[in-house]
């Protein structure tokens, strides 16, 4: 319904406007309705990292787009937490500092949402509360091995 959508839009927008500067240590971002009719208006995303000027979203760097996307997904979770969230190597484009920010965001969000994440990054792996190791000891056949954090840090390298 129109009412319901506008309400959802406004709430998510509020969360997103406050989440983004938190993720980036500054800057501004917001969602915008495109079109008159609330029944089919599109949603556009504006994002301006700290100190930069608003450009089009495609101009942002790989790491900036990744963090912006995380801010958006977590804003959706703030309104209506999905039961679980699966993240497959989303930290790949992030530099070390931003991996740290990402880990803090996930730790905080995991109070409401269960997380399952795939990563090759040591710091991300360290924030897991439980690890699942996958190996292909026998070629072409996956199996699970239990791992503790320390051997996993060693394991990300073996193939």
């Amino acid at each position: 319904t129109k009412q319901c959508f506008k309400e959802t839009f406004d709430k998510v927008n509020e969360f997103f406007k406050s989440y983004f500067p938190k993720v980036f240590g500054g800057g501004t971002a917001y969602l915008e309705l495109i079109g008159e009719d609330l029944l089919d208006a599109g949603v556009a995303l504006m994002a301006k990292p700290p100190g930069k000027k608003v450009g089009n979203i495609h101009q942002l760097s790989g790491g900036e787009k990744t963090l912006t996307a995380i801010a958006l997904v977590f804003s959706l979770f703030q309104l209506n937490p999905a039961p679980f969230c699966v993240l497959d190597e989303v930290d790949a484009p992030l530099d070390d500092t931003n991996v740290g920010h990402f880990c803090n965001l996930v730790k905080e969000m995991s109070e409401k949402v269960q997380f399952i994440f795939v990563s090759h990054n040591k710091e991300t792996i360290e924030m897991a509360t439980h690890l699942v190791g996958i190996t292909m000891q026998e070629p072409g056949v996956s199996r699970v091995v239990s791992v503790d954090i320390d051997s996993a840090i060693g394991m990300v390298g073996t193939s």
Partner: protein
Amino acid sequence: LSLDAIKLMGFKSFVDPTIIKFPSIRTGVVGPNGCGKSNILDAIRWVMGESSAKQLRGESIIDVIFNGSRDRQPIGQASVELIFNNEDHSLGGAYAKYNQISVKRIVDREAQSTYFLNNVRCRRRDITDVFLGTGLGARSYSMIGQGTITSLVESKPEELREHLEEVA
């Protein structure tokens, strides 16, 4: 609602019956390139009703069935089961009273898919219905596949709208 475990059998590189548990709030999945980590995410999407082979990195829907390795022959069917913890009874409807809810899908080489809810055969539609309003689904924004996160911020306005509608 949370995910307790996934059981895979014959799904992509998980040819042997495998159970993976998710007992806590942050589970890390680790291992070398090509060992099968993303295949687990494909399995979750698939059992929740994903019908596009391309979304699962295949050309045909039967590409999810283990197709053999150096020492093993291809097999005839793939099966994935998701076991949900519903102790908070947040999943309403017909399944509200269950503490655990199981969702299962099997496919054979004739591309015949069979779905089960709590081991009772059902239609694909019944599974997608159960998850309406939970923010879960094969294409949910809450499952971000490898290399796809930036496309979320670059989506067309109608696509972003759809994600907001999922949350509404």
